[in-house]
Every structure is written in structure tokens, then in C-alpha cells.
């Protein structure tokens, strides 16, 4: 086959150590620039089809939520779809006044409620009624979903956003001739967001919590694991506590925005059919007016050392499940690559140790998994395991079987065949990732923001290459310690006793 010049990534196939060369090929397609206000752009040219994906990546996540205001990072994410002072309103001046009025009434309501036992019930009821009326009045000025409608009308697809412990991300794709629309809308939203329909959206977010956590056994398990393992660090909850969500204020969201959505804390990635010069011109045109602000504070709380195993039960009529995690350092730690190899060797595919032993040999589990990163990469998080017992099999025997494996990998090294399998998969995974504009945009953004350079996507392969079987064993022995373990399991609700 004589077409190899068409294959920019062909060198990848020759040997594992050539990631550096792939990087050189890839670098030719990537353009980076930073505006005077500190806003960074990464542009990836992939002209195969006339479409383009855009990712706005903000270095703020639920870990930045303050006590009593959990859920705020996620709540703000929802507000970023509510439009601007020119889009989504029938009369901005009137709407703005009404939004201010809502806050005033709410202040008075909170002041009255804060009196505690001495609060006047009538005053509270009256203010609540006023608040409701003001919210309805403001609602009258809203052109519903104008922002998302406009994007959709222009052929935008895949519009969504997400909040994690570490970051917040906004994205969609457009036909490439409409890229300027993204510049216009994104620059307006992130220069001056409006807290339109805040209190209705708060109800939506509350429903989201009911759906994801409160009405979902696995959701409850995950949150219980976070809250049991982390007593101090704010990765305890992602979506926020129910009562915090119910009391979030528009004003808090605005202040949160001003503090964290500053140019130096954000990166914009554009991937697809895009001319980097044009992207630069549009970036200057639309984003140079974005005001700078002080670089936001880091999260300084460190989780105190765990002094012993913790166990927590979740009562549910659902079928049994067990999750458990061990504390581990953040992803910028030197042992991260070894832990990542460990999780792949344990849990990937049908050759992973967990699947082979628990599902196939012992036949005690329907599924078993391990993951090196729960539920943060930026902060020290956890290396977790989980199992779903088979019918008639117990949580106990599954936990024991996994612990046996844990003890083994702390003592014995994996075979070279296992290591080379994991490494081959990591390399091939990168090749497969290159197939998607959106996937690439997100990875470039995350690597830039969390590790300082998008090139880490490629350098990571070299880090993984260097991992030895002894590195993996040592990492397991260092971190998979009972003292730092937290176990969460389901338990059938108590029932009246019968024979």
C-alpha cells in the first residue's frame, strides 16, 4: 500500500516509544495563542468535514463551592444557557429592574427568616407571596430558551455543559461557516451573564438531584462514598446538598461568576474545519474586551489523614452493590501513571483480573470494576473498586475476593504481557480519540487546564511506557492500604422479623 503520506499518524505504529514523533506531526495542526487579558485559545485544524466543535473549559468545579452553598458551580453552569442582555429578553430594562426587585424581596425574606423563633409567620408568608409574584413578573419578560434556540436554528448540535469536581465545561458543534456565532454568543455570556429564571432553574436542578441521586441507588452509593471518605475536602458532594440547592441565591451565582470566570482561569478550544488566523482575528474581536480579574484562589483545604477503615451502609431495596476506595494523591503525582496502569490491568476488558476472577472463575459477580480516579484529578482523590454480586452471591464474598486481589498486587508483579497489553491499549486509545473533533477539543482543554499543557496528552503515553511492573506493585503497596479505605455497601431496609 503506497498511501502512507496520507497517514499523519503512521509512525505511531512502529514502536511505542515514538509518541514524541506523533506529537511533532500533531503539533503542526495545533495553534495556540493568548489574548492580552490572559484568555488562552487552542485551535486544532481537522478540515475533513465542514464542521467545528467548540469547548469552553473553566478551571472551577464543585470543589470550589463553599460550605452552605454547595451546588453553586453546577447551578451557575445552568445559568450560562439563559441568554444575555440582548438575547432572551422582551424588555431588558424592565426585566433587569424586576430581577433586582426579586433580590431585594428575597433579602427581606431571609432577614425575617433569620430571626429564627422570633420570625413573624405572617411577614414570612407575605414576603414569600411577594417573591413569587416578582418571579412571575420577571418571567413575563423572558423569551424562553432564546439562546439555545438560536444555536439550534443555526445548525448547532450537541449543545450541553457539565460540572465536575475539578472543572466546568460548555460545548457544542456548528457548521464551520457559522463559527462567528459561537464567538459572539460565548463572549456575551461570559462577559455579562444574566441571572434570568434563576429560581425556576433552581427547581430544575433540584429535580436533577432527585433524578441522579435520590431516586437512584447507584447515585446514592457514589455520594455516600464521597461523603464518607472526605470529611473536610469539598469533593464530598458534586451536585450539592438538597437544602443548599434549595437556598441558593442569584446573587451568589453572580459573585461566583465574577470570582472564577476570569480570562486566566479559562481556556477555549476550537477543533475542526477552522482557519487559525481567522480564529485569532475573531478571538481578538470578541474576547479582548473581556475584563481581567485576579486569578481565583485555590482550594486550600486538605483532607486530613484517614486513621482507619470506614464503612457506610446505604439502605435500599435495590439489589446489592459494593464500592470501596483508597485515598491516593492527585494526578500530577509521579505515581499517577503506575496507578493508571494498575487500574487497566485490573479492570479493562475481558482480560482484566477482576472480570476473570470474580465473574468467570469464582462466578460471584455480574460485574466488577476499578478506576484510578474518583472523583477528582486535581485534588487527592481515590482509587476505587466496585462489584455487583451475582444472584445468590454476597457482598461479603465479593469484597473478600477483591481484597485478595489487592493483597496480591501489593506483593506480586504483573507479567510483562499484561503491561505490554495495557500500554498497547493506551497508545491505540489515543489514535481512536483523534477521530472526534469534540473529543479532541475536550482532551486538549483538560490537559491544558489541569496539567498546564495540551501536549500532556501525548507525553502521557511516554509516562505510561516507562512504568515497570515493580512501579505498579510499589504504587499498589503504597496506596491500597486498609487504613485509607472507605467501603460503601447496600443493605436491605429493616423489616419486621419473621421466621
Amino acid at each position, binding site marked *: 500500500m503506497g498511501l502512507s503520506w496520507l497517514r499523519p499518524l503512521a509512525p505511531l505504529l512502529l514502536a511505542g516509544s515514538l509518541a514524541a514523533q506523533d506529537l511533532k506531526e500533531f503539533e503542526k495542526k495545533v495553534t495556540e495563542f493568548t489574548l492580552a487579558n490572559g484568555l488562552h485559545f487552542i485551535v486544532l485544524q481537522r478540515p475533513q468535514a465542514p464542521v467545528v466543535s467548540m469547548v469552553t473549559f473553566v478551571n472551577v468545579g464543585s470543589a470550589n463551592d463553599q460550605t452552605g452553598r454547595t451546588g453553586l458551580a453546577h447551578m451557575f453552569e445552568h445559568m450560562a444557557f439563559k441568554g444575555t442582555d440582548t438575547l432572551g429578553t422582551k424588555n431588558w430594562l424592565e426585566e433587569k429592574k424586576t430581577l433586582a426587585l426579586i433580590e431585594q424581596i428575597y433579602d427581606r425574606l431571609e432577614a425575617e427568616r433569620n430571626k429564627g423563633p422570633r420570625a413573624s409567620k405572617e411577614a414570612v408568608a407575605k414576603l414569600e407571596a411577594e417573591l413569587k409574584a416578582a418571579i412571575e413578573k420577571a418571567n413575563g419578560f423572558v423569551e424562553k430558551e432564546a439562546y439555545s434556540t438560536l444555536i439550534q436554528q443555526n445548525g448547532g448540535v450537541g449543545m450541553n455543559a457539565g460540572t465536575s469536581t475539578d472543572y466546568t465545561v460548555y460545548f457544542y458543534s456548528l457548521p464551520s461557516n457559522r463559527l462567528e*456565532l459561537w464567538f459572539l454568543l460565548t463572549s456575551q455570556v461570559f462577559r455579562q451573564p444574566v441571572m434570568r429564571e434563576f429560581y425556576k432553574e433552581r427547581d430544575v436542578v433540584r429535580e436533577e438531584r432527585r433524578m441522579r441521586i435520590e431516586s437512584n441507588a447507584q447515585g446514592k452509593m457514589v455520594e455516600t462514598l464521597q461523603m464518607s471518605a472526605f470529611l473536610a475536602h469539598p469533593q464530598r458532594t458534586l451536585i450539592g446538598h438538597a437544602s443548599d440547592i434549595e437556598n441558593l441565591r442569584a446573587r451568589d451565582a453572580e459573585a461566583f461568576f465574577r470570582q472564577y470566570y476570569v480570562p486566566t482561569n479559562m481556556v477555549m478550544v476550537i477543533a475542526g474545519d477552522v482557519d487559525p488566523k481567522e480564529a485569532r482575528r475573531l478571538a481578538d474581536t470578541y474576547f479582548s474586551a473581556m475584563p481581567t480579574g485576579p486569578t481565583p484562589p485555590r482550594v486550600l483545604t486538605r483532607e486530613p489523614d484517614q486513621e482507619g477503615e470506614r464503612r457506610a451502609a446505604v439502605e435500599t431495596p435495590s439489589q446489592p452493590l459494593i464500592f470501596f476506595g483508597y485515598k491516593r494523591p492527585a494526578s500530577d503525582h509521579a505515581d499517577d501513571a503506575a496507578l493508571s496502569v494498575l487500574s487497566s490491568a485490573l479492570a479493562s476488558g*475481558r482480560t482484566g483480573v477482576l472480570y476473570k476472577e470474580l465473574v468467570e472463575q469464582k462466578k460471584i459477580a455480574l460485574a466488577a470494576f476499578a478506576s484510578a480516579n474518583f472523583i477528582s484529578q486535581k485534588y487527592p482523590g481515590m482509587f476505587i473498586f466496585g462489584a455487583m454480586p451475582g444472584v445468590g452471591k454476597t457482598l461479603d464474598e465479593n469484597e473478600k475476593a477483591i481484597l485478595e486481589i489487592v493483597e496480591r498486587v501489593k506483593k506480586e508483579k504483573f507479567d510483562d504481557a499484561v503491561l505490554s497489553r495495557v500500554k498497547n491499549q493506551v497508545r491505540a486509545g489515543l489514535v481512536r480519540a483523534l477521530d472526534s473533533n469534540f473529543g479532541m477539543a475536550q482532551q486538549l482543554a483538560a490537559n491544558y487546564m489541569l496539567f498546564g499543557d495540551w501536549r500532556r496528552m501525548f507525553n502521557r503515553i511516554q509516562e505510561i511506557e516507562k512504568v515497570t511492573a515493580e512501579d505498579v506493585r510499589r504504587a499498589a503497596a503504597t496506596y491500597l492500604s486498609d487504613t485509607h479505605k472507605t467501603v460503601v455497601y447496600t443493605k436491605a431496609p429493616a423489616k419486621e422479623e419473621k421466621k
Partner: protein
Amino acid sequence: MLRITLILLIGAAAFGQPAPVKKAVPRPAARSVKDLKFPPMKQVRLPDITSFTMANGMKVFLLENHELPLVRGSATIRAGNVFDPASKTGLSDIFGEVLRTGGTKKQTGDQLNEMLEGIAASIESGVGETSGSLSFNTLTEHSDKVLETFKDILTQPEFRQDKIDILKNQYRGVIARRNDEPGPIASREFDRLLYGPATPWGRMMEYETLDNIRREDLIAYHQRFYFPSNVILSIQGDFVTSTMRQKLEKLFADWTVKNEAVPPLPPVSQAPVPGVHLAAKNDVNQTFFRIGHLGGTLRDKDYAALEVMTDILGGGGFTSRLLKKIRSDMGLAYNVSASWNAQYDHTGTFYISGSTKSESTVDAIRAILGEVERIRTTEVTDEELRIAKESAVNSFVFNFDSPGKTLGRLVSYEYHGYPKDFIFQYQKALEAVTKADVLRVAKEHVKPENFTFVTVGKPADFKTPLSALNMPVKNIDLTIAEPKRTEAAATPQTLAKGRELIQRLQQAVGGVEKLSGVKDYSHTAEVKVLTVPGGLKVTQVTRIIPPKIRYEQKLPFGQISVYYDGAGGGWFKGPQGASPLPPPVAKQARDELFRLHTALWLSDRNSDRTVNAIGPAAFEIKDKEGNWIRIHLDEKTGLPAKANYTAPDRGGPVEAEAVYSDWKEVDGIRLPHKINVAQGGKPAAEIMVTEYKLNGSLTVEELSKQP
């Protein structure tokens, strides 16, 4: 060889003519969207796809694309779970997976796993409702090896028994877990009601149908459906078309089996089932709902108008009426959407789904019905129609953003007998849709009087009861049918083996003579009940003169005594006083009698019971009332290691397992002094027997006397 040249059709359909290149003139920032002027959309380059039929009758589509060093492919097989026999519902699921995991004549499944994962390649198989697929994905450098393995799996699968057993075991878990999450319950029960739970489109795998599936069925399935003229193979990626074609011709030259064409799909012919259906799930605080009726196919002449109508009502994204009303305006849901959900080859379902907090269930449903009524009675606005159409036209390019999408579509059209340019025909039809069309199709095709409402939630928390919807409310029974164990086939051989095994047991515990000598029996046990938080300690004294049984339980809050006279009568006495024996307690007493060690171990001498071997060291004892127990012997000692049976539980019968240990001799009979019981997979009790007494001269008087 057919070259597909859809590129000709494109300009006319949606992309406009390629515009002359203009020099970019610097422009100031637009203040509003109205100031933006977009350059014309660029022409899409449609991939060059080669298709041909091989000598053996297999259709092939090839798409050469060197962007990445990958080769990916997929065989589409005309099969589907709608062809499964009702008694083996689930056959396609098992077949689809074991085709891959069960290995080939040359390699076991484990060897395949090692080989494929070692080179970061994958081959995966599955069968859905109306088609099967076997796909692969590999780096170019391994493509020959992977392609050969792919062919082996497609043509020479071995369906090894161990992998069938593992998968069936996993599916048992899937069945056991199917009522854990409310969302999937709503969609499943909705489909079952609409298509009819006994039809090929609506039925569901149960323990019993799963048990019926055997290796022979998988072999027969493969013979019936996996033959060349029933397969479409498509491959894309880093290869040269002519070389790949030669390779395939050579590789598949020896696959020449023929078979009759697969029959047409069974018809969908279910009358509407209007009404409200409630599946109570008391551990949730949201109601998950699905509302609608049967819909249509992509062939329907009104399909484009129906898509526009559903899109305006509740389509994807955030712009639909339902989302604006229920989510943005009322704040009642995170998710709410409508879907026309047309299918290529059979009637689909029109549905509106979402979830809302328990309290607002009826409010949300009423608001939804209001929107349904509105779209059926009033024309949509010009603006709404314009937005719906513009969205479709402008996002059309995303149907072509990777060459693989075009290939996938062509294969689907070929498989379902649709024209190759169907997507362009559809786009044209969509552009022609008028407001009047939208209103007409909403009136003709959306019938609220026929709506089936499925709700899954906690009715006690509904602010307004479902009956306020003025329709009959029926309960959906989520109880999972217990596995019927009668399926273990009894042949003269297995029955002979069963006798041999139970005799081994009899020898191990002390011999038939000793066992036959037991006339009455009592034991005292310390029971630790584990299903109660913190554990509950119970002292239990059991006394039996078959078929009469009496037991007392000392609980922290008082004592319970039970007497069963062996003929349906007896009494129950608790802290609140005495009563005739409630039927569930009588059933428990009969279960205890059935499982009484000494009598159970003599079951081969009881003409009401059968003893049938179900494994090398396991046998099943059944009686005429349908009681059963499976005993697994310790291969070394011949003593029972564990036993499985059904035990009553709050949600219906569950499978229980008793593990026996601490065997000690009592009057010449070895008896277990420690028994660990698990129910439904969870530890339920630890039983320590402190004393067994055999032939203690019990009298019926002392058993039947109330304390």
C-alpha cells in the same frame, strides 16, 4: 461493481452551490446576531464507497479512508430477537454474546481475549430486536490477523458451555436487578403494554425462558441465520480497496453455506391500551413517566411532518414546547421530551417521557396533556416551523461529518430495503412541511384518548392521586417470576445418578438404618438474624413428630410459638395473644418439614419425591406440591456442603442458600451444627445449633399445647 455517487444529489438538497472564494474583509464585532453575516456553507465531500456481492452471496461495502491507521468493520446479519421462540425469550441475547465469548474451533474465548486485547483490537457481537451484528476495530498493522479471527467467529463459532453458563448466570442477575432503577422500568413496561406482553415485540426474558436456552439452540441459531447471503459486510479505514476486495474474496471463499431466506418480521398488531398504569416503587422521590401509543415507520408518507410536529412539541435540545413549559416555566422536571421514534421495519412508539418530583406527578402530566391538546388543535407558529426547519437544514451537514456515518446509513438502507438516497428524500420532504401539515398529522396520528400512561414512583407522596386524571388506574406488578426448577431434565440416567448421590450422603451421615430410626426430633439453636440493622439474636427451639411441628422463638420483645398439625391446622401465639395459624406461617412450617434433615436424606425412599442428579455431586429433591431443594455434596466427605431452595420474602419468594459446617455426631448420625443462610444473595442468618435430640419420646400433647 457499483460506485455510489450521492455527491450529485447533494447540492440540490441542502448545501447550496459552492460559493466563489472571497477575500476576508476585517469586520467589527457584531453586537447582535442580526449583524452577523455567515459565509455560505461549504460543500460536503461524500466518501467514495465501493459495493459488490461476493460469489458466496455476501454483500460488501468498502470505504477507504487513510486519516487514521485504523480498520473497522461490521457484519450485519438478518436475525433478531423477535424470531426467538417464546419459551426461549432471551435466546438472541445469549447467542449474540456467546458467539464471541465462546470462542471458535481454533481458539477458546479466553485465547481470543488475550490475543485481541494484547494488540488493542476488539471484536464484538450482539443481536438486537431485528438485526445481528459482528464488528471489529483494529490498528492497521494487525488488520489481517483480526480480519481472519473475525471470519472465524462469524463462520466457525464453538459456543463453549462454560461461557454459556457464565452468561446465563449474568443474565439471572440482570433479571434480578431489572426493578432497581425507575427510568428503565417505565420504558420497559410502556413497550410491553403497547406491543402486548405476549408478543415477540413485547415479551421479556424470565428465569424460566433463560433456563430453557441450551448450547444446541445456539448452534441451531447460527446455522439458521449466519450464512453468506444473509450478511452485509462493511469495512472502512486504512486499506486499499482493491487489495481489501481480493483479501475478502480469498478469506471467505470457503464459506459457501446456503439456507432459506429469513421470513418477514412478525406483524405489530396490538389495539390501543388506554389507561393509567402505576408501578409502585417506594424508594424514590421522583415519578418517572412515559405517555403515548404506537407510532409508525420511516416509510410513512407523513413521517417528515410527524418529525417536525414531535420536534416542536418535545424534540431534542432545549427549544421544545414541553421543555419550555414543564422545565423552564414550571421548574417541574430536569428531563421531559417527546419522540416519534419511528422504526425502519416495524411500528415504533410515540411517547412523551420525563421525571418529576412525586408531589407534582399529576400536575406535570396535566401540563403535558395541555401541550398535546394545543398542538392538536392550533397551528404551530410560523416562527416555530421556521426554527424547526432551519435547525434541520443547518445541522444536516452533521450527517456527513465522518465518512463512517455515510457508510453506516447505506448499510441500514440496504438492510431495510430503503432507497440509497433516503436521507435526501427525507430532507426534501421536511422542507416542504407546512403548518397545516403539522396540525393535520398531529390530529390524525396523536390520539390522547388512546394514550397509555406508565408511571413509576411512590404514590403515597403524590399530591393529587392518579385517579384525578379520570381514567382507570391499574397497578403494574413488578414481581419477578420465580425460576421454575422443574426444568432440570430427568432421565433414567440422571435419576440413577441421583439415587447414587443420595446414598452416598446417607452413608456419610451414618447410614440408612440410623436415619430410618428417627421417630421424633428436636433442636435448640441460637440464630443471628442479619437482615436487621445491628443483627437480632433469637433462640429457637424446634420439636417435630412428622408431620407435626412446633417451634418457639425467643425474641428481645417476647416469645413466639407456632404449632402446625400437619393437616393445615394449628395455632400461632405471639406477645399479642393467640390466633389460628396464618397461611404464610403454615407454609413456612411445611417448608421446614420438607427440609427436615433426617427425612430429607431419605427422600429416595419416599414415593412422593424424586431425586434427580443435576451435576456430578449435586441433586435435586422435589415433591408433588412443587417444593424443591438442591443439595450439593462435599466431594471429599459426601456430606451436604450447601443447599439451595426458595424462601418467602417480603417481595415474593427468593432463592436461599444454606451452607453447612461443624458436623458432629448425635446418636450415630452426623448433623451440621452451624448453618449460614443467605437470601436473595445477602447474608440472612447464622444458625448455631446448641443441641440436637433424636428420639426424645416427644408426645403430640406437649407439641400441641399452647403455652
